[in-house]
């Protein structure tokens, strides 16, 4: 049974590494918010595996907090992006329903 626990830990670690690579590469800020969301899901999974391995219910409130934190984080980032883009559109005084070919330079302003 120990082999299975080690496999679980390795899978979660590799998943977190891949998610971190996407967090660093992510072309837009929404990709980064998405990968942070996925990383939170991986963290919840890892903490849950820890709790199950030790038969220890101490970390369960942490799972509760993390499951709410992911929602607040991604929604606030998305709202921030929407507001900033709309302000940009207002400057151009010409608003399209779907703004295509918007090339943002992330990391400069955010």
């Amino acid at each position: 049974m120990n082999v299975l626990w080690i496999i679980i830990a390795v899978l979660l670690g590799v998943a977190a590494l891949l998610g971190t690579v996407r967090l660093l590469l992510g072309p837009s800020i929404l990709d980064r918010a998405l990968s942070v969301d996925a990383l939170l899901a991986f963290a919840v999974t890892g903490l849950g595996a820890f709790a199950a391995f030790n038969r220890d219910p101490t970390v369960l409130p942490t799972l509760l907090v993390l499951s709410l934190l992911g929602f607040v984080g991604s929604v606030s980032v998305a709202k921030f992006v929407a507001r900033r883009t709309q302000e940009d559109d207002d400057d151009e005084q010409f608003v399209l329903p779907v703004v295509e070919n918007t090339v943002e330079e992330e990391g400069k302003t955010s």
Partner: protein
Amino acid sequence: MSEQVVQVLDWAGIVCILAGALLSFIAGIGLLRFPDLLSRMHAASKPQVLGLLLVLVGIGFRLLPVEESGVFSLGTLFLVGLFQVVTVPVAGHIVARVGYRTGRIRRDLVSTDELADRLATRGSASDPSEDTVS
């Protein structure tokens, strides 16, 4: 509880947690390899709902034999699953909507786009009821 029941519960729990970890791994690969925001969202939402519920069921199986705190643990696990199931679709919807509106999706990968048709028939963005997201 007898010894054999505990053993069966342990194996069921570890299989559930292994499935959840496998889904996380697959989501990590998809997050890295997929080409645009929408397909990455498709990959990343698997461990957020199905993987997390599997892991919670596994924790429940492992914690059930603990005598003094079993019931409270199950209540907390149920709350975690409930919050996750309620909030993940909302967050995904908002992120996808903002991504669409700001043009961060790749048009050549979209096979059907019903929202574009609706927007075209509705007229331009001067309709204020459309912009509830901002």
